[in-house]
């Protein structure tokens, strides 16, 4: 008996078709993964199935739940009890004023119909299952991304809905957290069915089951997850799979490097009195590319600020062997839109810097050409360009200052996989050519392994 059966379901905004007609069937115990780039209409499909499209959009085609043909309103009766959807940002989908346990118990009580006392017990039990027993009283702002995600999933499942629809469940999570969440999704929906929507190939590989690939509203491929991942037919699917750092080709790099640039003895860094990491010892040489890894919150960014002199070190010594002026120790930021003022065009920002340090204008054109930046792009402001282009503009500004050190703080984590690969490759090559040392920070060990000469791990 098919839990969900959809025929020619499409989504339209007025006359524009956002999602081409699509049909699918999910049997009991089956898992379906929908893979695609961000913004390719995947979320619209999930909302169309659930029946909670925004007012301005309308869906066509029919949806059968548990063999019953139901329109959008009728489907609301199924919510929580028969079918349940987990939204993209879990930390936004929990009530900011209520404790985690209270929200969970509430769902048991009101949706599953358990008595008040019974609901409290079920909540305690589920939280313990997730290893969150002692953070039951905490509110969303006191939970980490992973913890919030696990609470949200528990809430979604508390209603006892056999079918679970997960929309980008792992977005913004560390690698270790990501595997844990996917594991939980699979165990929770063993008897029912699981439809997962993601752009992360690793997640798709971990879930297995059947898979569909979508690009800008079009269904490209459909079939068994194993077959598609190992032998993708469509070019786009292939590019998507190759973008996963694990599949990046190993290039040979000249790992030569020059004189020592900056060395650190028994350094401890942190904010105020609370040290995040202690006893750091390393020496960075000119033109060397060093990776920095560690769990989120272990002080990766603080290390950069301390090295660049923005923060004071809590202990230990930093020694600079080069007397390059202050503006030659540069930093690349995780979110380029926050690092560039949107008040004026990029050209004005560039001219500001050129006139401040009277940089030789002839060096701009070759560098822009190498970074793949077109001239008319400079006429727009920071909000008028894509994330990748803006990051490359930041690199242009930094390199024009002939930096000796470039501290890149997760420069590509906000970009989609394909651009991620191009930008990280570009960063390393251009830095090497200009003899500039790079410290690359990332939470993705695979990417660090592929790009860096050596790795420093910040452990607790």
């Amino acid at each position, binding site marked *: 008996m098919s839990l969900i059966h959809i025929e020619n379901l499409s989504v339209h905004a007025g006359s524009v078709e956002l999602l081409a007609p699509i049909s699918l069937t999910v049997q009991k115990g089956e898992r379906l993964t929908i893979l695609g780039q961000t913004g390719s209409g995947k979320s619209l499909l999930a909302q169309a199935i659930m029946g909670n499209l925004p007012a301005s959009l309308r869906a066509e085609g029919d949806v059968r739940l548990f063999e019953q043909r139901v329109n959008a309103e009728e489907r609301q009766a199924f919510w929580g009890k028969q079918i349940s959807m987990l939204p993209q940002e879990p930390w936004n989908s929990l009530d900011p004023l209520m404790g985690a346990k209270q929200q969970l118990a509430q769902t048991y009580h009101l949706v599953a119909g358990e008595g008040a006392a019974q609901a409290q017990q079920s909540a305690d039990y589920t939280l313990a299952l997730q290893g969150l027993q002692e953070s039951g009283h905490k509110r969303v702002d006191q939970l980490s991304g992973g913890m919030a995600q696990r609470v949200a999933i528990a809430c979604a499942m508390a209603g006892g809905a056999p079918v679970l629809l997960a929309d980008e469940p792992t977005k913004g999570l560390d690698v270790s957290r990501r595997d844990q969440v996917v594991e939980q999704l699979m165990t929770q929906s063993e008897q029912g069915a699981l439809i997962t929507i993601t752009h992360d190939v690793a997640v798709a590989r971990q879930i297995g089951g059947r898979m569909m690939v979508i690009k800008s509203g079009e269904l490209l491929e459909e079939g068994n997850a194993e077959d598609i991942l190992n032998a993708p037919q469509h070019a786009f699917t292939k590019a998507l799979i190759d973008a996963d750092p694990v599949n990046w080709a190993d290039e040979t790099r000249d790992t030569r490097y020059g004189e020592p640039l900056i060395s650190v003895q028994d350094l401890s860094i942190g904010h105020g009195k609370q040290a995040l990491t202690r006893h750091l010892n390393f020496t960075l040489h000119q033109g060397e590319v060093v990776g920095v890894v560690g769990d989120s919150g272990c002080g990766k960014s603080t290390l950069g600020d301390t090295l660049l002199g923005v923060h004071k070190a809590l202990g230990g010594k930093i020694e600079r062997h080069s007397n390059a002026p202050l503006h030659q120790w540069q930093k690349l930021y995780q*979110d380029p839109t926050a690092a560039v*003022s949107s*008040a*004026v065009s990029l050209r004005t*920002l560039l001219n*500001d810097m050129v006139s*401040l340090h009277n940089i030789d204008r002839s060096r701009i054109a070759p560098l822009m050409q190498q970074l793949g930046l077109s001239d008319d792009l400079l006429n727009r402001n920071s909000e008028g360009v894509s994330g990748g282009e803006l990051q490359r503009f930041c690199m242009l500004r930094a390199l024009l200052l002939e930096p000796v050190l470039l501290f890149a703080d997760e420069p590509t984590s906000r970009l989609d996989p394909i651009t991620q690969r191009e930008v990280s490759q570009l960063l390393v090559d251009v830095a090497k050519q200009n003899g500039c040392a790079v410290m690359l920070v990332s939470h993705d060990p695979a990417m660090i392994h592929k790009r860096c000469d050596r790795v420093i791990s910040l452990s607790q």
Partner: protein
Amino acid sequence: MLALSTTQKSGLALLVLLIAYALCAPLLQAGDATTQNLSQILTSPNADYWLGTDHFGRNMWLRLAEAMQLSLMMAALCVMTSAIIGVTVGVLAATRAPWFDRVMDGIVTMILALPGLVLVLIFAAIVPGSFWVLYVAISLIQWIEYFRISRAITQRLTQSPAVQSSKLMGFGEWYIFRRHYFPAIMPQLFTIAAFGAANAILMMASLGFVYVGIQPPLAELGLMIVEHFPYYSDAPWLLAQPLAALALVVLACQLMGRGKAL
């Protein structure tokens, strides 16, 4: 420079219309706002008195224009002074030593302790009838609004990557203010300024109502409403004119203040 929403544009249009009336009215009719004609009191609008005459037989067309000029001038002066003071002190409080911030916070709490109107009431009672004391009193109260907003925005921005990267690139304080702080403050500034102008006019009118504001024969909207109130049954249009003028000028300012439909 500033993308104005439709509501803001309609507000601006209304304001321009009112300014035009205030400035051009004296050119269109001879005479001045204070000449009395005791044999022609309370005449309703007719050919030679376009807006009729008040209880002294004074030409309402000119008197309303003069009152409007006074209100608009007060609003403009108050907004400019309080904006300049508020933003400068706000940015300094956020960027300079913490003790400066605490001192300013103390002063602000002191002034906020008493509702603005009471403070202005006392000031106006000291030097009754002087435009400049009113202007100082109202600006003294209104700069706090600008101070708090610009300090909050600047505090948030000082930690932002944009400012940090500008500092790393060696840019100076003034550049950071011009490129980062001011563009962020600007939209909020415009909203507060618009509402500030409206409040300044309302406050001056309220003082006129309590007989503290302006001395005769100067025309002021609030005082006119009080003077014309006894005639509301036999010359309703006389009371309606200052009421409508006051409402329109305040409405225009408030519409300009509202970006999205609040």
